[in-house]
C-alpha cells in the first residue's frame, strides 16, 4: 500500500477491535437471536468503515473453548469469488470465517466442565486484541487511535479474574479504552471495572431490538470527538473485594502480607501461601497446594 501523507491521519482516525461473544451456551438462551445480533453488528461495522476512509476494524471471536481473529479490514481481500452479488465482500468474508470458527470451537468442547460452564474466554480475546494493538503502535508515529469494544453476553468466569485484570492494567498503560456493551441478563463486574479503569464506556442496553442504534450513537464515536459528547456515565462501580473463605463481599478485611489473599476473620495461618502469621519464619514456606487460586472480585 502506498504511504498515506500525514495530513490525512487526522485526530479522528480510529482502529476498532471488536470482541464478539460466540458462546453457544449463552446464545441458545438469549432473548435476541444470534442472527439478528449479527445483522446489527455488521451494519455497525459497515458504518464505522464509512465514517472515515482510514478507519480500521478488526473482529476477534470469543468462544467458550478458544478465541481467534475473524476479520481484519486492512488485510487485502484474498478471494474475489466470495462476492456473490447479494452482500458485499466484507460481510461474506466475516460470516464465512465466523462459521469456521464456531464449528471448530464446538469440536474442542470435550466434556462438560465443572468450572467455568457458561463463561467465554474474555481474557484470551483481550490479550490477543492488546497484542494486535501493540503491533499497530510499532508501525510508527502515524497510526489510527485504537480502542476495544467488547460485545459480551456470557457471565464472568471467576477463574479469569487475574488474567482479565492484567489485561485491563496493560490497556490502561497503553491508553487504550475498553468499551463494553453487555447483551446478557446481568451486569458484568469485570467489564464495569475495565471500562472505569481504562476510561471507556459501559452500557447495558435496555431494548435489544434497537441494538444498532445504541451501537452507532454510543460506540461509534472516535476518541477525539468523545470530549464533546455526553456519553453514559458509570452509575456505580463496586470495587469491594470478596473474601477467600466465604466468597462474601466485604467492607473491611484482613490481607496476608505475603500473598495478598483477603480474609474476613483473623486466622492463624494463610490458606493460600501457608505462612504463619505473627512470628518470624525460618525458611520460605513453599506450600504444596500453591496452584492458581482464583481470587474473586
Amino acid at each position: 500500500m502506498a504511504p498515506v501523507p500525514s495530513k490525512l491521519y487526522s485526530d479522528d482516525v480510529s482502529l476498532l477491535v471488536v470482541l464478539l461473544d460466540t458462546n453457544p451456551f449463552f446464545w441458545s438462551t438469549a432473548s435476541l437471536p444470534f442472527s439478528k445480533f449479527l445483522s446489527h453488528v455488521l451494519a455497525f461495522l459497515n458504518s464505522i468503515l464509512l465514517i472515515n476512509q482510514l478507519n480500521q476494524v478488526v473482529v476477534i471471536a470469543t468462544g467458550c473453548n478458544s478465541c481467534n481473529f475473524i476479520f481484519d479490514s486492512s488485510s487485502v481481500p484474498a478471494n474475489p469469488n466470495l462476492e456473490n452479488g447479494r452482500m458485499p465482500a466484507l460481510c461474506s468474508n466475516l460470516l464465512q470465517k465466523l462459521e469456521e470458527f464456531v464449528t471448530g470451537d464446538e469440536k474442542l468442547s470435550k466434556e462438560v466442565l465443572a468450572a467455568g460452564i457458561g463463561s467465554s474466554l474474555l481474557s484470551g480475546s483481550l490479550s490477543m486484541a492488546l497484542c494486535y494493538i501493540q503491533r499497530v503502535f510499532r508501525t510508527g508515529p502515524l497510526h489510527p487511535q485504537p480502542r476495544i469494544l467488547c460485545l459480551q453476553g456470557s457471565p464472568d468466569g471467576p477463574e479469569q479474574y487475574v488474567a482479565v485484570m492484567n489485561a485491563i492494567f496493560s490497556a490502561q498503560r497503553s491508553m487504550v479504552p475498553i468499551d463494553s456493551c453487555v447483551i446478557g441478563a446481568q451486569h458484568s463486574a469485570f467489564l464495569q471495572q475495565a471500562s472505569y479503569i481504562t476510561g471507556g464506556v459501559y452500557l447495558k442496553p435496555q431494548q435489544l431490538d434497537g441494538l444498532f442504534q445504541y451501537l452507532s450513537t454510543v460506540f461509534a464515536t472516535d476518541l477525539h470527538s468523545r470530549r464533546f459528547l455526553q456519553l453514559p456515565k458509570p452509575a456505580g462501580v463496586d470495587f469491594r473485594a470478596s473474601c477467600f473463605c466465604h466468597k462474601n463481599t466485604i467492607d473491611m478485611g484482613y490481607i496476608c502480607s505475603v500473598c495478598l489473599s483477603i480474609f474476613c476473620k483473623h486466622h492463624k495461618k494463610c490458606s493460600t501461601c501457608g505462612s504463619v502469621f505473627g512470628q518470624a519464619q525460618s525458611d520460605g514456606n513453599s506450600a504444596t497446594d500453591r496452584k492458581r487460586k482464583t481470587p474473586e472480585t
Partner: protein
Amino acid sequence: MHNGTGSLPFVQFKPIKNFTSPSSVSCIGLVGVLEVKPRPKPYAFIHSILGFSLFIYTSMNDMEHRKTNDGEGRRLDGEEEEEEEDEDEGNGRGLDAWERAYADERSWESLQEDESGLLRPIDNKTIYHAQYRRRIRSLYSSTTTARIQKGLIRYLYIVVDLSRAASEMDFKPSRMAVVAKHIEAFIREFFDQNPLSQIGLVTIKDGLAQCLTDLGGSPDSHVKALMGKLECSGDSSLQNALDLVHGYLNQIPSYGHREVLILYSALSTCDPGDIMETIQECKKSKIRCSVIGLSAEIFICRHLCQETGGSYSVALDESHFKELLLEHAPPPPAIAEFAIANLIKMGFPQRAAEGVISICSCHKEAKVGGGYTCPRCKARVCELPTECRICGLTLVSSPHLARSYHHLFPIPPFDEVSLSLLNNPHQRSSRACFGCQESLLIPGNKPTLCVACPKCKQHFCLDCDIYIHESLHNCPGCESFRHSKIVSVTEE
C-alpha cells in the same frame, strides 16, 4: 555637527550566545547603539532602523559555523554605525556544537561492522531483544518451577546525592537534572507495580542528610518536591544518610520490607564516625540497600550492598541509568526472615454517590460527589490507596491488590524456536504470530526467529514476547484455549 547629546538607542540587538545553529538566529532581537546622524528626520530614522534590522537578519542567516569566541566582533558592511556586541563566551569551552558532538557524544560508537568489514547501522531491534533475553534468563535461571516469594509491601527510601559531584555535566544538562527526571518516572512506575508500598526521599548535601519527603503512598507529593529547586554543593556523606534512613525505617510495621536505593555521584564519602558500624546496624535491622553509581565503582558501596543483600551497579550513560533505575521497580525476591508475615486490616471503601456534599478529610474543604467513604469511621477520602486520617485504616480497592497478582503468578519465559524446526514443512503453526498476526516469514518464505510458549506451544514474534512479559503478563495462547489451562492446573 556632531551630536553631542549622546547616542540614542532605538534599535537594539544582542547576539544570542551560540551562533552556530542557524535556527537560533531566526528569533533574534537586536540590541545596539546607533550614533545619531546630523539632520535627523523622523522618516530617515525609521528607514534606517528597518533597513538595519533587515540587513542584520539576512546576513546572520548566511552565517554558519561561526566561532563564538571571535573577539573582534562582526563588521557589517553597509551602515557605518558601530555596533557593540556583547558576546558571552557561553561555557568557555570554545567548541561549536558540531565539535562537541565528537568530543562528548562519541558518535563513532554507534557504528558497527558486519562480516566483510563494511559499515552498517546498529540493528536496534535484535540488540534490544537480546538484552531482554539475557535479563529474563538471569531472573529465571534458578527458579524454573519454584515460585520465589516477593516482598510486595515495600517501604523504600530513595537517597539522592546532591554533593558537588552532582553538578558535573557528563550527563546532559547535569547529573542532578537527569537524576531528578528519571526518579520521577521511577516513582510513577513504582506505584504502578507496587500500589501498597510507600516511598520517601532523602538528600545528601554539604555532608548532611535531610529528609525531602516523608514516607507516603501518593506519587504527587514526591514529584512536587523533586521539581522544586535543588542545588548541589559540598561533600557527600554515606554514613549520615544511612543513619537517617535507619532511624526512619525502624518505625515501620514489621510486615513491610525495608529498602534503600542510593543514587551516588560522588567518588568519596566524608563520614563522622565508623561507617562499618552503620552498615552492620543496617544489616541487623534487615534493611536492603542498593546503590546506583554515576561515576565509578567504589569499594564502600560494593561492601554495603554485599552486606545487606542489595545490588550495586554503575551507569554508563543516561539510557543505561534509566534502565538500571527501573530494574528496582518490580519487587525483589524476599528473604523470608526479613519480614514477618502478618494479617493487615484493610478497608474497601465504596464510591460515594454523585451529588453528595461532604467535607473531605485530606483537604479539609467541602466537596461535591466523587470520593470514597471509610467503612470504619465514615470519613470521606478523595483518592485511593490512602490511610484514613481519622481512624488510621488502610483503604484500598480490589484493583490495587490485583496489580500485584502478576508478581505472584508469573508466566514462564518463552523458548526460542530452533531454525531447524522452523524449516520443517509440516509445521503449520509458525506462519503468523499468534498474538498480533504478524507474518513470521520474510519474503522468500524463509522463517524468521520466533519464540514459543512452553505450555500452549503457540508461536510468537519477538516484539510480542517482550510486550507479554513486561506489560501484559498473560500468555494469549494459554488464555485462549480452555483445555490447555485445565491441563496446566492439574499438572502442578
